[in-house]
């Protein structure tokens, strides 16, 4: 167990190292920190002196080590635009994005498991055919288009739900602002969550259905029937558990993908999260913020993937974690 954990953590650290190198390279090549600091009307001599003071003339290794050291202490530079530490800016936007991902995840889990299981158990019914037909239409519509369509129908045409922003949020534990505490917050998060879930949901329905159908063909399911076990127990105890194991692995990767899709949903719904902020930072060439976003998002990816791997090892009895470390 320990060896497996250590191996996963070492790999995670290696990936973070590569990400930090990329971030560092971006920082060194994108924009000019001097111009942000003092403007252009400064003599070459003063510039040179400033470069020395800022350590811009140090060797690559020294500069990287300083960058990495600062990053480890939570210092990812100061945003040119907000004039605030870049990490603080991002952490302030993080709750909005995470709540959106959370809402979408709930929708995906809540719908994909029953729909996937149903279409696997009863593949020939009309309802199953409709679900499968809709699912392929679903994966063919880009997230941003779904979002636009939803705004058009539910906000512009019917005016049922608001089309942009987070609405009334409430402070809980320090800086965390939540949408789930007020009715207005709820109405604001519904459309973006569904839009974000819209491309993953059909993907998961299809995945669960395919895995489940394969499991239902297996010898152990046939054997369970031969033992006289009731159908619901065969479906939900014997088959579903085996179905969900591979789904967990894919799901972990998809959580990362969802962070990418938040950029699209947040842009359409003007949702004040990290993704929306990132695009603004790109337009303003706010290098420290871009770099900080890269590192935070990279960190989220690495952590979720490592955690998902560990969970998979824990829930799957056939994966012997102790032996996998070897």
């Amino acid at each position: 167990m320990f060896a497996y954990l250590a191996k996963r953590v070492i790999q995670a650290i290696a990936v973070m190292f590569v990400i930090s190198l990329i971030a560092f390279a971006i920082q060194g090549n994108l924009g000019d920190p001097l111009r942000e600091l003092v403007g252009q009307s400064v003599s070459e001599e003063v510039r040179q002196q400033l470069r020395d003071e800022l350590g811009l003339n140090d060797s690559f290794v020294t500069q990287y080590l300083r960058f990495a050291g600062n990053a480890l202490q939570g210092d990812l530079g100061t945003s040119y635009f907000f004039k605030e530490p870049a990490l603080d800016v991002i952490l302030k936007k993080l709750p909005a994005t995470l709540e959106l991902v959370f809402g979408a995840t709930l929708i995906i889990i809540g719908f994909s498991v029953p729909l996937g299981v149903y279409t696997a158990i009863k593949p020939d019914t009309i309802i199953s055919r409709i679900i499968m037909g809709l699912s392929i239409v679903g994966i063919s519509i880009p997230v941003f288009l779904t979002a636009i369509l939803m705004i058009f129908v539910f906000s512009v045409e019917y005016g049922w739900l608001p089309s942009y922003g987070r609405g009334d949020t409430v402070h809980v534990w320090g800086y965390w602002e939540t949408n789930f505490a007020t009715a207005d917050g709820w109405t604001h998060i519904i459309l973006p969550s569904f839009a974000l879930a819209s491309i993953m949901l059909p993907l998961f329905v299809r995945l669960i259905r395919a895995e489940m159908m394969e499991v239902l063909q297996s010898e152990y399911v046939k054997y369970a029937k031969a033992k006289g076990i009731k159908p619901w127990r065969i479906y939900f105890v014997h088959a579903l558990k085996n179905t969900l194991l591979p789904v967990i692995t894919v799901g972990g990767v998809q959580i990362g993908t969802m962070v990418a899709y938040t950029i699209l949903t947040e842009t359409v719904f003007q949702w004040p999260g990290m993704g929306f902020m990132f695009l603004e930072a790109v337009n303003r060439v706010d290098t420290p913020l871009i770099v900080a976003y890269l590192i935070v998002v990279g960190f989220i990816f690495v952590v979720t993937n490592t955690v998902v791997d560990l969970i998979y090892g824990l829930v799957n009895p056939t994966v012997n974690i102790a032996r996998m470390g070897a």
Partner: protein
Amino acid sequence: MSLLSVRDLTVKFAMRDQTVTALNGISFDLAKGERLGIVGESGAGKSITGFSLMNLLSRPGYIDSGKIEFEGEDVVKMSDKRLRDLRGNRMAMIFQDPMVTLNPVLTIGQQMIETLMAHRKLSREEARQIAIVKLREVYIPSPEERLEQYPHELSGGMRQRIIIAIALLLDPQLIIADEPTTALDVTIQADIMELLLELCQSNQVGLILITHDLGVVSQMTERTLVMYAGRIIEQGRTREIINDPQHPYTQGLINALPQQTVPGQRLKQIPGNMPGLASIPTGCAFHPRCKYATDLCRSQIPEVVQYGDLKVACHEVQRLQADEDRQEVRA
């Protein structure tokens, strides 16, 4: 009254382009506590027969016609609920490959206890105690610990013992064992067979043993069916079939046994292969591989005739027997 009586059982498979007949007019009986062997090459329909008896064929296979009377009730006509009541309770099955039979994500205990609780009103603890007793009967060491383990933590031989224990859990009238040792190491095959025989004898359980190994059949069973291309071509007492087979196919099978061969000599194989279900020859399905085949064999399906203690489906059986007698007289 016999425990099991199968009459004219016909099973078909609806394939994409055509429907093929996998079993064609199978009839046999099994007395209470009797042990019956079903032999034949792969593809003869042995396993399909086994699954049909439990009405457990999965698509595209289906029972087209015939009767399977088990304790006086027709399995073919049973409701789903009656079938569930039958399966695992009065009639149990042992699958071929223990490595894939048990569910990998459930413990041995869960898989044993659920079977008991599906058929009897028991508390979890009572069920656990029965499971432990049955595991002891199949010589599983420290059964309490095994109940907590997952299948992948156990060897193939151990798993097959557990599957035998599951088959015995509810004291069934009949166990269907579908090649229970083919997937196992040669060294433990005999052990498992011995265990199965011992338990069937001591518990008065009927056994249908599906195998391609005539040697195993001769040790385990009282009566034998020989199948070829979806039909029974010979049936009778095992001793007779082994010692004095009448059908040329059975004779071929016996001659192909290693025991029948002088060391250093080649095994006497039957030439050719079993036909596929979609291309069963006309007349007697065995005729292309039979050295005695006549025009009659090629055109007409042989009736089952009683010959001595055996029931044989062969046109030539009388002539062959006459030839043999003549040779014996001359010798």
